[in-house]
């Protein structure tokens, strides 16, 4: 007898059926959809600066020139003196307002560099836990094609402390990835590496994997046919690991690229701020040009500064950079902070210009057209973890349309929420205006870089208009 009953109903059958498809670890999803080696590389770089930006109240005479955010509409926006250095690149950049990570909006700005690229609820005290950063999500995919999956840099180096990050990058377990800060060390890694130890280690791994495959086959022979099929998944895992190993091995055998070193001052330190800065940017540029990596992060200083590394502002004649944010109400205070932020924008602009002026070696347009470059901070006004000041540049070939000032959220169109505050009233205060989750921009960025995902940092959905 043939049963015409629709297969749609039986609940027990259904329940038995489900789970199976869900068993794959979520990490697997990153493996899908790559940008093949024959298309132009898609790149991502994020530059982070601590201490936020100047945000005087409208009534303040300094507002006209030294408020960070532009004036006007999406296309006809007008840059203040803080960002006017980017005027020549106007068509290549987008400036955002009204974005922030919801989990940290009432956490002190000093604690927040940690979560800028992760969106995690890292909090203000007690136990600490972070999650994977945007760059590393992409690096897991883009790293397939390059010698280094990512380049992680900061002026201060290392990981910093919990809530005092000195790196912008966090791995899939939420552990900080140490940042490099000596140009010489970075250059050697990128362009001098010999790799003898690495080769020996790979050779040992290769032998172990070979053994495991042979051993597993003989183990499998003792199992039932059904169980052998299950075991096949283990063998696949070992084989996939071997493939990765072979790739790594290939890089060891491939000579490091030769690059033009004229613009590098490898002995520069943060005290020679301008030179150091330019050298670090130049290293990112060279690593992109040689396709040594497609992912880079760079953190300037650390939140709450202090110590010998907070000297970047020397380039424009100031002492400790963090102090500038506390002195905005002193004579020329807004101007001084604005001048420092202007200098950061200027160096970012120099880097962007260079990407723009360089043709993509294996593809259409310029390096910039295939690169999404971000510049920003996790606070706007004094210690205030809202309305992040973010600039992005490039990415034309990824689908980004620049030359715009994009305001998101509601109730803070003139960026006056929290303006002019120099006390803790600001960051402790209630969130009165509506902002959108920055992670929505991150989802958009990931998708355009070719990562199949609908969410990031617990936030689902993309950002409109970008």
């Amino acid at each position: 007898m043939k049963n015409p009953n629709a297969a749609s109903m039986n609940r027990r059958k259904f329940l038995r059926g489900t789970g199976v498809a869900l068993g794959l670890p979520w990490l697997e999803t990153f493996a899908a959809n790559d940008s093949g080696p024959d298309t132009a590389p898609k790149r991502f770089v994020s530059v982070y600066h601590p201490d936020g930006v100047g945000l005087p109240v409208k009534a303040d005479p300094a507002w006209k020139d030294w408020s960070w955010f532009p004036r006007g509409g999406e296309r006809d926006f007008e840059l203040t003196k803080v960002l006017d250095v980017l005027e020549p690149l106007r068509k290549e950049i987008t400036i955002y307002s009204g974005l922030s990570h919801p989990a940290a909006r009432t956490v002190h700005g000093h604690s927040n560099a940690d979560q800028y690229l992760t969106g995690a609820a890292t909090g203000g005290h007690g136990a600490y836990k972070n999650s994977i950063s945007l760059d590393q999500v992409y690096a897991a995919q883009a790293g397939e094609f390059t010698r280094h999956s990512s380049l992680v840099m900061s002026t201060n180096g290392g990981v910093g402390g919990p809530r005092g990050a000195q790196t912008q990058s966090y791995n899939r377990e939420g552990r900080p990835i140490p940042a490099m800060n000596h140009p010489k060390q970075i250059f050697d890694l990128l362009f001098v590496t010999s790799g003898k130890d690495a080769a020996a280690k790979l050779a040992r791994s290769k032998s172990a994997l070979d053994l495991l495959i042979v051993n597993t086959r003989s183990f499998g022979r003792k199992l039932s046919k059904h169980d052998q099929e299950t075991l096949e998944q283990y063998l696949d895992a070992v084989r996939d690991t071997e493939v990765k190993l072979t790739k790594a091995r290939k890089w060891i055998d491939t000579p490091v690229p030769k690059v033009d070193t004229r613009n590098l001052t490898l002995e520069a330190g943060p005290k020679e701020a301008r030179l150091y800065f330019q050298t670090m940017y130049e290293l990112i540029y060279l690593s992109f040009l040689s396709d040594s990596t497609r992912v880079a992060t760079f953190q300037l200083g650390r939140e709450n500064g202090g110590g010998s590394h907070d000297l970047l502002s020397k380039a424009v004649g100031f002492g400790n950079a963090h102090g500038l944010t506390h002195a905005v109400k002193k004579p020329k205070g807004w101007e001084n902070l604005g001048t420092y932020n202007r200098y950061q924008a200027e160096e970012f602009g120099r880097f962007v210009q260079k990407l723009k002026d360089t043709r993509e070696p294996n593809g259409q347009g310029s390096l910039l057209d295939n690169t999404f470059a971000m510049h920003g901070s996790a606070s706007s006004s004094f210690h205030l973890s809202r309305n992040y000041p973010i600039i992005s540049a490039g990415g034309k070939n990824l689908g980004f349309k620049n030359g715009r000032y994009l305001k998101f959220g509601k109730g803070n169109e003139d960026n006056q929420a929290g303006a002019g505050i120099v006390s803790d009233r600001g960051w402790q205060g209630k969130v009165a205006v509506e902002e959108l989750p920055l992670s929505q921009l991150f989802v958009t960025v990931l998708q355009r870089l070719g990562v199949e995902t609908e969410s990031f940092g617990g936030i689902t959905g993309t950002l409109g208009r970008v």
Partner: protein
Amino acid sequence: MRKIGTFPLSRIGALGGIAICCLCAPASSHGAAPGSAESSAKQSQSSELPPLDRAREMGRAKSALLAPVLRKEAPASAGPSTANLVDFKKHVAPVLTKTCVACHGPKKAKGKFRIDTLDPDLMQGGDVDWWLEVLDVLSNGEMPPEDADVQLADEDLTKITGWLGSEIQKASAVRRNEESHSSFRRMTRYEYNYALQDLLGLTYSLVGSLPAETASGDGFKNSSEMLQMSAMQFEMYREIGLKALKHVTVSGERPKMVVYRLPMQDEKLSVNSNEDIGEVHPLSQKLKKGEKPVKGVSLDQRKRSVKFNLSNHLPDEGMMRVTIRAGRSTMNTDEYANLRLDFSAHTSNNANFSQVISDRDMPVTASADSPQSIHFDIPLSEIQRNPFRNNIEKFPRRDEFLTIQNISSGRRNKEPLKVLVDFIEISAPYYEQWPPKTHRDIFRESDHKTNEQKYGREVLTQFMERAWRRPVTSKEVDPFMALFTEYRPDFANLEEAMLEVLATVLATPEFLYLAQEVPASNSENPQTISGLELASRLSFFLWSSVPDEELLELARKGTLKDPTVLSDQVKRMLTDSRSNRFAQNFVHQWLGLDGLDSVTHVKDSSLLEAIQEEPVAFFDEVLNRNRSVMDFIHSDYAVVNERLAGHYQIRDVYGPHFRKVPIKPETNRGGILTGAAILAMNSDGKDSHPLKRGVWMLERILHDPPPPPPPNVPEVDLTDPRILQMTLKERIADHRNSPACFSCHAKIDPWGISFENYDALGTFRTKIANQPVDATSALPNKQEIAGMDGLKRYLLADRQDQFSGAMVHKMTSYALGRPLSFSDRAEIDSLTVEFRKKGDRLGDLIHLIVNSSIFHSK
């Protein structure tokens, strides 16, 4: 709520009783409606209700599984294995045609279902799942609907269920030999963690980076089909294995210890011998101006903690032993004191962290006159450290801090309880011996230590036998030995090279998977697992980990399968502390307690901890005292600690440990249904969630999961003023009455509504928003249920067979690490009968399962 018709009460009880019984009922039992349901159903409607323990006795008395006719037939599972189509044609088909075909036949096919086309051959046919569905809806009184033209007479019902029950039993046994039902699987993350710990003597977890398991449809994480493997995961196994091996072995000379002590204390109390000590640093308590350093520390309700600056002397790795000698100033039994350790740093403004580093709070029970020594061992490489500690610059700050916290109950006695500490010593890296035992267990003493090939082979063989849980041949060791020989020149000494090889052993499927080998073709019992496989199955069941040497030794000797030996081993294993993992993991998965991880409305962390712990503690009590599992439905005791007792308004319970206390009916607790874990987890964060609670009941307690929600569920329109005015229960009823929702919700909601007297925190209530709570509902079989008491009463009176069957099913599935299928049904049913006969006792269930043929099958 919609009132659903009138229905003869006698039917209800009888149907409830049949729910399980008909599975085992022999075909000849036509007409013999089992049980005496009539009386209890009537009683449950009368105003004078018997106490719950009486309901339980009566429910047991009418169990169909315990009916005499079954006792005779149940063990005879080796009946004829061809379909009984004669009886079908003669007795069953006419009834189906008369009763069902009008709606489920050629003219109409309601619910897209036709009964006339089902293949009555359950042995060979393809419609077994549909027949199971038919049996369920008939047994639970859901079909035919009460507004149907035709009704089903009891006699006819028994004809169908009798025939079906017997056919299902036979078909299950037939399919058992045909279908694959493999327990071959990899370890879960938690099992891998315990296996590493037990194998290597590691005392902490290193597996945080491994992805967590997805639970199966049954809620189990150790279910074979859910345990996948990926390249990423495989690489992690290799990394973690090597890391673990490095953590338990040492090289070179014993490192000198950094020691901190309170000033002015008696050095003779030191746990360390002097020659092992390098630097000694005073522990500096912050002193007020002019205050002199004191001997010891006094902690009470006002000064709850003491914080020490350890500067940056602590090593990066190794164990930190914190020894605290402490006693209580008073010995009042209504007060307790515990010690807890916190570790923190404050590197610059707002860049700080602190974390609890002790696994669990350590009770202070001694009096101050004869204080006790309390030890904490903390792996320094596994806690959050100050990343700047080794910097040359002084900023960001490099200091690390240790805080000793006094976690105690605060009572306003005349003489408040103080914890008096007269000695504190912090030593790191701390080793009890050198080299430590964990090292010597891998690199054992041997006469061949000087001959690297010989000694290497010894080390490898010993290690492989423990990791693979069986003897290994020298041929199996050869390739690993070859790997060692290849690695050796890259490393300074044998140990370092060997660790890399041992890490490879820890990445083999022989370690990572639980396997049952195909026996040699001349084997006597090809379907039976070997003694060594039994040892592993047993230890993963009761210890969530690898077997110990005693189990392996018995397996090698071939005596483990001896019922007496096996029974003794189960007893030994259940008294071993490793069996805590069984209670923990089984209860968490059975009840779905992961749901508590996403609960955010329980703000008090000590309450949340207690809520999470209660079901496990309750299970422990039932298991250790070998009580009946019916206690899970209702008990006249609760298992609580002080925090939870406060929440339940049970008085005179002091201290953080869980213990059994008698309760009265007006406490409105007892069993697990009224545990705050279940109630809080199945809420929406603000109020109760009857739907979630109903689904939970069906899945976890009755093992009768509802279908998943359809894709186009209409949202409840909260802008509609009519709906806004309704109580929650009315809204549910309103939603249910839309035709798209009715069929499922009618089955789910009534169960959940009976929990309405408990809010989102599990607190008992009689009013919601000033209106009296309405917790009455009617099940699809028309059974009226009045609140939690009514629910318990009904379960105890009419659903004992179903619940005990569910327990057997779930425990067996967990024990085997695989989902159970139709082919296991016959065995599960006969196990359930045995279980019921022995009095439904939880401890007996473990023994029954371990001795069952299903547990010994491949």
